[in-house]
């Protein structure tokens, strides 16, 4: 079976600084991978490179997503192809109501796939259902996107978008940062409901805590821009106990 995502020898730099140094990673459908590692290991860089953020320059390697060259696509084309990044720091867009943003995203993707656009009532119905499961107040949807939202509200909003857009590969970048334990559970529940044999996930986190709620199949340690160790879910517990110091030594 073809892997959902196959990253081979990925090198990337930001402002001339090398961050990823030959990263290899294979994610199959149905798998949840956790990527852990010390600060500065390249965790967020990996997520931005996969999403196509300007300024993140790939200097070597490739990422094949569902058989296509992910790195050759523009960010919107990647989203249409089924790639989703849940941002560590979701951006605030004053003047764009959350609901309008959701409508633009859903319908842009449908249009690009040659599907009929969703009518406003139909979209609203779907959004309300998802919002309910994520403990999101629907009044929030009328407010400008993420403006004045708490850290928890922003992350729940990211989860809402993810569930609404039904991507085939979800990358969650430090979804636990800025979340209290109740919000963490709500968001994790939302993510877990998306787990399916057709979908893969990469959960990027610094701490093991999130992995109590989103239990991974495979855990990787990222250090100095490479995967330096891969194991089962117990690896996360081990890391929690021993810390990242030994891997930083490896990198150095």
């Amino acid at each position, binding site marked *: 079976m073809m892997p959902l995502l196959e990253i081979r020898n990925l090198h990337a730099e930001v402002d001339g600084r090398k961050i990823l140094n030959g990263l290899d990673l294979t994610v199959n459908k149905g798998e949840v991978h956790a990527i852990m590692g010390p600060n500065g290991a390249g965790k967020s860089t990996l997520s931005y490179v996969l999403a*196509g953020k*300007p300024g993140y320059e790939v200097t070597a390697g490739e990422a094949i997503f569902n058989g296509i060259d992910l790195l050759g696509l523009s*960010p*919107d084309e990647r989203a249409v192809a089924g790639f989703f990044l849940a941002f560590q720091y979701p951006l605030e867009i*004053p*003047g*764009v109501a959350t609901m309008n943003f959701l409508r633009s*995203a859903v319908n842009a993707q449908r249009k690009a796939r040659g599907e009929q656009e969703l009518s406003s009532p139909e979209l609203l119905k779907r959004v309300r259902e998802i919002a309910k499961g994520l403990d999101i107040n629907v009044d929030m949807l009328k407010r400008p996107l993420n403006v004045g939202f708490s850290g928890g509200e922003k992350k729940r909003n990211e989860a809402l978008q993810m569930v609404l*857009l039904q991507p085939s590969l979800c990358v969650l970048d430090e979804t636990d940062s800025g979340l209290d334990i109740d919000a963490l559970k709500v968001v994790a529940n939302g993510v877990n409901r998306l787990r399916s044999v057709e979908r893969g996930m990469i959960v990027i986190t610094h701490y093991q805590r999130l992995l109590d709620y989103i239990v991974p199949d495979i855990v990787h340690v990222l250090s100095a821009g490479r995967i330096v160790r891969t194991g089962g879910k117990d690896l996360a517990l081990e890391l929690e106990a021993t810390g990242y110091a030994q891997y930083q030594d490896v990198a150095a």
Partner: protein
Amino acid sequence: MNAEIHHLKTNAELALAEAFEVAKAALPGDATVAAERTAAFERFALVGLPHRRFESWKYTDLRSLMREAYPLALPPDAAAKQRAKTASRLFAAVAGRRVVVVDGAFCSDLSDLSDLEPGLFIGSMADALATSDSLVASHLSKVGVNDPLFALNTAFVGDGIVVRVPPHTILSRPLHLVFVTTSDRPAAMYTRSLVVVGQGAGLTLIESHEGLTENPYQINTALQLVVEDEAQVEHVKAVTEAATALHVGSLHAAVGARAKFDHFSLVSGGNVVRNQAFLRLVGADTAVGMCGVNLLSGRQHADTCLIIDHAAGCCESRELFKSVLDGQSRSVFQGRISVGPQAQKTDARMMTRALLLSDEAEAYSKPELEIFADDVQCGHGATSGALDQDLKFYLMARGVPAAEAETLLIQAFVGEAIDAIGREDIRAAATDATLAWLGQRR
């Protein structure tokens, strides 16, 4: 010829002097008005067309932007009036009472003057001048601001609209002053309107300026607005002139006590546009808000110049002007908040933001505070920058294509100013105008 005329040097200035000599006998008004016109032309002639060293026109050098002075427009014929009927589609959904000026002439036959609310007066400025209307005559040059282009307006004014809203009358229907240029030859139009809103009255006033012609033309238009105590006025000005137009618009507003005055201006048309507003708060406890949006492309130049004069205490004023600039366009914002010694407890804030979509566009901002009272809160700010690439990336990461992401962000940028419009139907018209502009950009 007057002795000062020797200050006039450029072709345009000399043509203006000549045009005034030729036209003055035929312009409407009695001997007093004629004397005011001559005095006004002399005030203009002392300085001529403003240029770089003329501070309030520093960034809009009319001496170089206005190479010629076109002859006064001819009165509109039947064909011109027919063309004018298609005007102002932008506000089609607003069921306003339309009062129409074509090529600088008031057209009662195109205006909706039926079933006027009791006491409401709407008439032509030419008639008011010809019949020595005392209210109009007393306002003709009494503005306290010495601006050469306003002086030129006083000298040449041919027509316009006079409106009186009686005290305690709330007009539920907006009043829409429609100014259309259809001239089939290069022409200049000088219009003056006077709108007096009585004590405790309420009015939504739309003022639209557009051109249905490919010929170059010059508009010098002025609106004097008197907002008496406790009156509530919302004034919306839309400049969607043809690409060949030079538009100079002056707003002189005096706002009384416990009143409310809101202004919104939209500029998306015209080659060179100067919107200048001189606002005097003459009574205490009044709130004013002035917002505006400039949508510019190509080589368009739009200059917004505001002088907010707090002459009475306990008033609040807020200004928010936004410009979106594409191509090689230029926007200018000059705003001065002036707080007189009696205007204690003034709360005044002014903000201008420019969004530059092109490396070749230019935005100039010059906010100023001039404060003579000691117990006030005043602030101003100015920003300019490009579209936020991180926000664009966030939208694209959700599947929104680049062009649509930009459109959403630009809409959001101007939306903050448009949201200040009180009436939903006018807000929708301003949003539609923005979408139309964005549509052309793509």
